[in-house]
């Protein structure tokens, strides 16, 4: 069970984690498609690089984002004693 005085640091930590998870992903969502045409000159696995990054790259970044978030947020929960009691 979380101590009462841990609430504020816990929520501050959670907010930081949310921003750290979402900001790079949101940035990639904007930048990668906009520069796709310029990157299409190069190829990876035969696929134009810009198209590859917008399709495959963003999917991988999305999965890594959520996987890292789940891991880190769970660590934050345990650090502040806010985790579930099972």
């Amino acid at each position, binding site marked *: 069970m979380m101590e009462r005085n841990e609430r504020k640091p816990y929520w501050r930590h959670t907010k930081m984690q949310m921003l750290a998870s979402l900001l790079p992903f949101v940035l990639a969502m*904007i930048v990668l498609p906009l520069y796709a045409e310029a990157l299409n000159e190069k190829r990876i696995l035969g696929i134009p690089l810009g198209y590859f990054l917008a399709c495959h790259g963003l999917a991988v970044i999305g999965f890594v984002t959520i996987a890292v978030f789940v891991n880190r947020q769970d660590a934050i929960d345990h650090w502040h004693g806010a985790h579930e009691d099972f």
Partner: protein
Amino acid sequence: MAITARTRLVNPRLGTYFGIFTAAFAALFVLALMFEQLGASDGLLRLLMFGGPIVLYAAIGLSSSATEARDFFACGRRVPAFFNGLVLGITALGGAGFLALTGSLFMIGFDAVCLSIAFYAGLVFMGVLFAPFMRKHGAYTLPTFLGRRFESRTVRIVAAAVLSVPILLLLAAEARFAAYAAAWLLGQSERLMAPLVVACAAGIVIAGGMRSLTWSSVAQAIAALLALAVPATIIALMVSNLPLPQMTHGNVLRIVTRAEIVNGVPIVLAPPLAFDFPGAGVEPLIKRFVQSFGSVGSLSFVLMSFVAAAGIAASPTLLSRSGTTPGVYEARKSLGWAVLVSGVVLLTLPAIAVYLRAMLLEQVVGQAGDRLPMWFQLLQQAGIASVEAKAQTVRLSAIGFERDAALFALSIAAGFPQVIVYLALAGALAAAMAALAASLMAIASILSEDVVHGLSGETASEAARVGTARLALLGAAFVTIGLAIALPADPLQLFLWSLTLSAATSFPVLLLAIWVKRVNAWGALATMFTGLVVTIFMMLLGEAGAVDTSSALAGAVGLPLALAAGLVASRMTPAPGRSALDTVREMRVPGGETLYDRELRLLRLKNRTQT
């Protein structure tokens, strides 16, 4: 493995059950293939591929009946993260993802990727911003959550009314996609199939509500994934010797790009706010596959990614699933699985689009109009493809194609047995039915929990709540049939409208309810009202041609204005009370009892002591 309360909640035989389902589905497919080779009639094969899977889904749905409210509305809160993620991923995609997105990728190539990005970005946003807190609160519906968070029955009723709009649009869209797949599968008209598929979806979930929905949707997700994988993997093996269409379609894409240059397909650059997605009928192929921003402008591309992602993240249909996991950690983890599942599907769809385009460019473009391959003539006879009558030599721009047919047209073009074509259709039907049933369940829960019993303070018996939800489900099914038949709009357009409205109404109010403690009931009402009114106004302006933006992007105006209205209204009115702040504080901490369950337990205890 240590046996804890968390592991005891989960049925250890789930893997075995769904292993049996997968084997039964594969056996059905192989049986149909054998029948086809033995010369069985086409009608029998169609019936087998339509009826067989539906009987399996119905058996799962009807055998998972529920009488307790917690089972009926939250599947007993014992769905493991993987299964919840699997259902979330496929339900988010639905028929729109399987049929319309594949077709859009085939017709406008890169520009349709904005929707792909929106699907997995929406699930990431949901996992980080909303799902863990919704799970800790434990409310069965979004209006219940908002009503309790803001301690206002008015907020609850207004939220029920406002959030029903995107759900009804989604219901109409998914019913149309399911009817489209069923119509091609059975060779009947869409109007005839719409009541049948809606009745099937409602019949599967009526016995057990969320419990039936969850386990039948797992089966539908497995069927949809298998149906997508089989044709794409066979073609990947044929062209690259590797069974990975997602990674090996590069060489085919190189051929496509070269053929487009040779055939003089022009490079078109759309204005930044252009948003020209292909419509439902037969439309010409005018754009190069890899070239970006030819049909959708650069600004519209980014805006669509964000608006649709916000719509998916705050979708009332999907978010009601977050209460089904055993805990907050599982709710977060299930979104990880959902992103993985949807990511695999969304990387397979462009491969299918590239393979079909390559076949078209290699075998149809440049041929004499009277010497077209047999498969293309079959598509022409079926009304899926067309060539301009006066064309002596076929050019790409002279070819028209029906958007939603691209998924199963690939199997026809590759000369596969007819049963593989029916398998692709059965997969699309499964995905559309999963989304349709989830939306039916969402609106039935809102009608029962928030409109009928929400006004009387949750004192109704469990039997009354479950009974009302079943009646509401039947009513919602009738309304859906009416909408699917009466609404003339393109189903993809209905789907995009649903997302844009969800982005402007549900997303801002949830964001403020969870992340901004100061927001009160007035702020919530102002948020939902502004989001709905501004978005509908922008949609009407967009449809009338009074503004340059598409009606699908109306949420890009509605969302920020709704957020601003909520913050301003909250600042101008008294701060929320102490108990509302306590609810927010408790909701933010994963540990401890689920808030909604505790509230109902205390209410029951109070009623017992009074009697």
